[in-house]
């Protein structure tokens, strides 16, 4: 396979419906950065993969759930399993619970990812430890749809410690935060269930945004990005 930075590689040939969804997604306008953070649509995203290496492991499943005007609409949600040529190994399956047959009988990856684009639109995305989800999605969308998926991400792993500085030193992983706020998770590491849990954390964060100096959606995303460099840098 050609490296993804290679400028002259051939775009993958896409079925008509898929190409149409992708074209429509490209035409969509960017979200309104100036809108209040608690208003409008955020899309919480979680992915399952064949391992923890964002650069080499395969994308197996994607879950997404919208937070609209400070409310989670269970029906405004998305879940897909991408068809794999071969199932991931047993230890991996034990993590996310997506069995071998489910993997090999999943959705055609291009169709699945186009549907994902259609679902998220150009709304800002939310995840806990977003770089992993962002990288997995960017690689897969690039490979199967031939487009660059560079989107604004709000990383709750960066923002939650700003909202509750007292907890910041004690809470690190998603599980810590869920436990601290007694947010239930039906099946941890099942993409859509993790989305629901993460979305509840998001509901808790949104009212705190103005106090963190991020009144608008754009400012909240920027805050997340700047804190990532601070905390990692």
């Amino acid at each position: 396979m050609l490296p993804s930075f290679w400028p002259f590689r051939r775009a993958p040939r896409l079925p008509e419906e898929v190409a149409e969804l992708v074209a429509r997604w490209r035409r969509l306008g960017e979200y309104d950065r100036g809108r209040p953070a608690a208003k409008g649509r955020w899309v919480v995203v979680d992915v399952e993969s064949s391992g923890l290496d964002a650069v080499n492991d395969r994308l197996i499943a994607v879950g997404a759930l919208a937070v609209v005007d400070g409310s989670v609409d269970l029906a405004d949600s998305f879940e897909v399993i991408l068809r794999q040529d071969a199932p991931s190994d047993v230890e991996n399956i034990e993590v996310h619970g997506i069995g071998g047959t489910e993997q090999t009988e999943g959705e055609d990856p291009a169709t699945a990812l186009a549907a994902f684009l259609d679902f998220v639109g150009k709304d800002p995305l939310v995840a806990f430890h977003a770089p992993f989800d962002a990288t997995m999605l960017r690689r897969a969308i690039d490979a199967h749809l031939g487009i660059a998926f560079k989107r604004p991400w709000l990383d709750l792993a960066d923002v939650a410690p700003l909202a509750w500085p007292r907890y910041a030193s004690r809470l690190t992983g998603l599980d810590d935060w869920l436990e601290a706020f007694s947010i239930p998770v039906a099946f941890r590491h099942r993409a859509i269930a993790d989305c629901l849990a993460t979305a509840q954390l998001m509901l808790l964060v949104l009212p705190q945004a103005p106090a963190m100096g991020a009144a608008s959606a754009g400012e909240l995303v920027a805050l997340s990005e700047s804190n990532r460099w601070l905390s990692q840098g």
Partner: protein
Amino acid sequence: MNERQPPPLLTAATADVLRKHAPFDAMREADLVHLAAGLKLRYFAKDAVILSPESGRIDSLFIIQRGAVQAEEPSHVSINALAATLTDGEVFPVGALIAGRATTLRYRALRDTFCYVLDEARFREVMARSPEFHAFCTRRLAALLAASTRGTREAYSNRAADELTMASPLRNAIRHAPVTLPESASVRQVLELMKTKRIGSIVLADGGGRATGIFTQTDVLNRVALAGQPLDRPVSEVMTRNPATLSAASALSEAAQLMARRGFRHVLVLDEDRLIGVISERDLFGLQRLSMQGLRKDIGRAESVDALAFAAREVRELGTAMLAQGVAAEQLTQFVSALNDAVTERAIELAMRDHDVAATGFCWMGLGSEGRGEQTLATDQDNAIIFPDLEGADREATRARLLAFADEVNRSLDACGFPLCKGNIMARNPDWCLSLQEWFARFDDWIRNSDPEALLNASIFFDFRSLHGDAGLVEQLREFLLANVKDRPVFLRQMASNAAQTRPPLGLFGDIVGGEGGTIDLKKQAARVFVDCARILALSAGVGAVSTVERLRLTGPRIRMSDDDVAAAIDAFHFVQMLRLRAQDSLDRGAGASEPNRIDPDTLNSLDRRILKESLRQARKLQNRVGLDYQL
């Protein structure tokens, strides 16, 4: 986006959360899933106002996922006593949503709270699909009652509210999976497992996995250690066979009653046929000072009237404690009745040591509220004796022996806190110590004459129940009553007319109208209406049940009362009984006043006043129903 269906996992997970609470636990899977698929999840920070009268017409139902919401009157924000607190699984504002109006209460998050929100369209769909959900939402009284029960609990007790109430299903009280061993296991194996798992009981199963026995810590002492049994014996020789079982949907109160009645400490909980756990007495009464079971034993072991009186006092204390825990009136009166029965039975057994009356084949009957199993905490005695007309026996000699015996029992019961009956309706009265044939004649006389005295007697004596001795006599008397009353429409009509004399104290505009000093008599003006109407309906339908609730339950379908109407009448009756219990309890604690059933409605909080109003409306409805039947 609503035409989208959420992924099954989300709906299933949400349904699982809901299923922990009524009415969702009773709904069909498909209906619950349909409901779950339409939900949104919203967050309200502590102190946020979720809804208020200013929110305008209500267009969604709120279901608390977790948190706490205060429902309060907007004008009384600071007075918490007037408010109800809603917690996980509770829904609001049902009435306003159904009626399509604004809410009268303000709903405020007491702490960080997550609510599921169901839009009106989906709410109506689910109402149409699910009879359970429909019944729950339309039976507002029941929902209000639940809120009031919690209110009671909070008013009485400052400790963190126990999530389980006596009405919770056993399923929710199970703390761990059952620990089982094959019944062929040795006692040693069982003891070792109990030690390593640190548990108090082990269930033994046969080859087919069917639970055949239970072995508990107490058994270790009694049947192994003290009995000197070797530890290598199979446990099947010392276990308790055929342990008591209840279904997972049964209420905690049922388990408690089963334990109280039969003297068990453990009950196996079955889901379908599968064993899912063991409920022990300690699980049920962990918070309670007094144990039902212990009390039941104390009563049964009392060797003197003094000891019995002491146990009877503890029954009243237990009743008060249960009232404080928010145990519903129905369960509470059942417990109190069950324990009072035990006290009576023991008083009879003690008296029989001095009086040789067993050979008479007598039966001791409880009458009136005792007969109906509806005793409150302050109940005087109503009892009688029935004895068989044995061939060759001298009826008067038998009566003389029984009267002497009854006098001792009546005095013992008086010492135990059941005052002697002012109307002398007691077994020691020769008028009420009769043979079966004499009772037939007496009942027949009342039914034929239906004069005021006969009607008054009927209202006490027709609620009879066997407490000790040959229950067959009582059943014969009941058959006689039902067979004869049916042919006497005049008598029933007189009873109905009598029952219509006292109207529930409701004004023209549905407000409560108090008498002297603005008070109402909960017994005469409310409870008795239900009791009298239920008696008439049951007798005319040939229903032999004695308790008011059973009478309504069994008679309702026969006279085409809808299930909802029956349920509403029963709830209303229970509520009135609970107010009576509460009123009596505050009297005990020195609030004064000579009339234990009188309350001032203005001293109730707004929620309870609303429920009382609705309960009185139910009483009037029932009375009207009886009136119609007899064209009064």
